[in-house]
């Protein structure tokens, strides 16, 4: 089988192929000489060059979380959408977690600086500052103070500054 993941912004390819001697693993086309032991469902011990790696894998939607020797690596499945769509973090500001919009500090049409706090979200008994990802003009605000937001809800749209701004 073949598998593709995005890791650190790069597309990585893993292939498992049955051969006469066992199963051949390639990463980005390079054969990897490893010894794999499945300990339990989603729980592996992999040995490479005499070094052992403990790995625990859980798929969670589009993301696969893998714990390897005390570090957590998050792999993303490549999106089927066409490349080129602007990342949401650039043109929209989204709620990083569910919570209550306790303070809205900008209005539509206002120009904001990068990292400027534009709203305050309250969740888990704490206040969290939502900051502008870049400079821009607030094109649209989708909520008002006191609204309860779901995770990833778009709070506001930013549009690029025109030359004259």
């Amino acid at each position, binding site marked *: *089988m073949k*598998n593709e*993941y995005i*890791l*650190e912004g790069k597309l*990585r390819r*893993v292939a*498992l192929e049955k*051969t006469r*001697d*066992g*199963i*051949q*693993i390639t*990463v980005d086309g390079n*054969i*990897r*000489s*490893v*010894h*794999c*032991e*499945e300990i*339990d*469902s*989603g729980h*592996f011990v*992999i040995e*490479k060059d005499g070094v052992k*790696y403990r*790995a*625990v*894998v*859980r*798929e*969670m939607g589009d993301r*696969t*979380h*893998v*714990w*390897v*020797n*005390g*570090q*957590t*690596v998050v*792999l993303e499945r490549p999106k089927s959408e066409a490349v080129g769509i602007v990342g949401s973090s650039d043109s929209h500001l989204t709620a*990083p*977690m*569910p919570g209550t919009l*306790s*303070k809205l500090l900008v209005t539509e049409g206002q120009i904001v600086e990068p990292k400027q706090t534009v709203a305050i979200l*309250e*969740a*888990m*008994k*704490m*206040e*969290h500052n939502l900051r502008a990802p870049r400079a821009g003009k607030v094109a649209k605000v989708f909520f008002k103070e006191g609204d309860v937001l779901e*995770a990833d809800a778009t709070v506001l749209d930013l549009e690029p500054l025109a030359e004259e701004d």
Partner: protein
Amino acid sequence: MFKKLLVANRGEIAVRVLRTAREMGITTVAVYSQADRKSLHVEMADEAVEIGPPPPLESYLNIERIIGAAKATGAEAIHPGYGFLAENASFAKACSEAGLIFVGPPSDALRRVGDKLEARQLALSVGAPVIPGMTAVQPDIGAFKKEAQKIGYPVLVKAAAGGGGKGMRVVSSLADLNAGLEAAMRESQTAFGDATVYLEKYIAEPRHIEMQILCDEHGNAVWLGERECSIQRRHQKIIEESPSPVMTAKLRVEMGQTAVKIAKAAGYRNAGTVEFLYEKGHYYFLEVNARLQVEHPVTELCTGLDLVALQLQIASGEPIPLTQEQVQPRGHAVECRIYAEDAARDFLPSSGVIAALAEPQGPGVRCDSGLREGLEISVHYDPILSKVITHGESRDEAIRRMRRALSDYVILGVATPISLLLDILKHPAFLSGKLSTHFLDHHFADWKPPRPSENVQEMALIAATLARAGARRSDGALSSKARPTPWQTIGHWEIAHG
């Protein structure tokens, strides 16, 4: 001793209290919100009562519902844990009015030490050193401006009802005073239902050192040794230890005696903590935490005592079963708090489902946890998941043991600060005991999680692919227990060279 105890809390602390109560042969009652139906504390208790919808105000902060649950189940006493109603004087009062034992200080003492300004007066009255600042509630911004001017910027705005770093703001100049006051008041209102704030001198490089105490109704009081809790983020502790690297035997006795004096002056009862700031050989009274604290296990591992058992004994009217001389701390203990939060993104709380879990075990390792695989971490509550506490003969051994324990701790599904904690536990300043409450700002302001090595990345990619292959193979071949048995999985693969 009473026969039945209701635990008015959730998560790791409810589990921890339930364990000791069960060991003492006390029948236990859990309460839970609709979000916590499948929680460990609900499962562990002998009985469990649902007390309302997920928002705390409608469940864990709902005094009427909780007292109703106690009456309905015949519980004689209520342990409040920490947070929620633990330091709520009205709740303590409501308990006693309902004929229930509140496992904590009497309502009066709670009110006295809960008001930061009154607590300050109490400390002054017994000769304890305090931080320069306001001595009474001030009605307007003008008074704050005047006081700030008097003691000099930077100043610290604090919630009178505060705790846990909530409702606190450092203000470094007159220009920022208004905004700081507003933010602190807003947060204080949300967290404690009380917007009263006050102001004091901001101590630049303090250590946070606190003293655990016990008081009973027979006039006995002991101190159980200090904890240093200087490693904080967002004014909230994440690493605690005992003894403090700067503590001397003489200073310990002095701070212990001061702590007991303050508690006695307040008419305090049960377990509590007197917090101090320490800088350059001087210490200042900070506040009283009128509850069992998150970091109490550090003291338990050093003293060999069970603070919850002692709390229940004291609450049932028994005298403290040991003298000051019998308190003999041994070795060194360190606690790391595991929050559902992203340390690389300004400690943003993280919600989700615990998809994989393996908790650390072994000699000298204790893990106080409310977790299990499949548990949903809700957005409604404080994001503390668990605590790892290690004990060793020396500070060095306790720290090395903690590094081993944390590097064995598997939690997938929510972000945790484990890799930050591991980096702190390796940092030269931490290892040499050079701590202050600004430790993280000084040394970890731009911290990013260590980048996985190319080998670790490749192993993650391979393991993820193997897991998909395994999941595919087990389709349609699953046994009725709904998970593949070992011999149904892909098993042992030896990969031939080239």
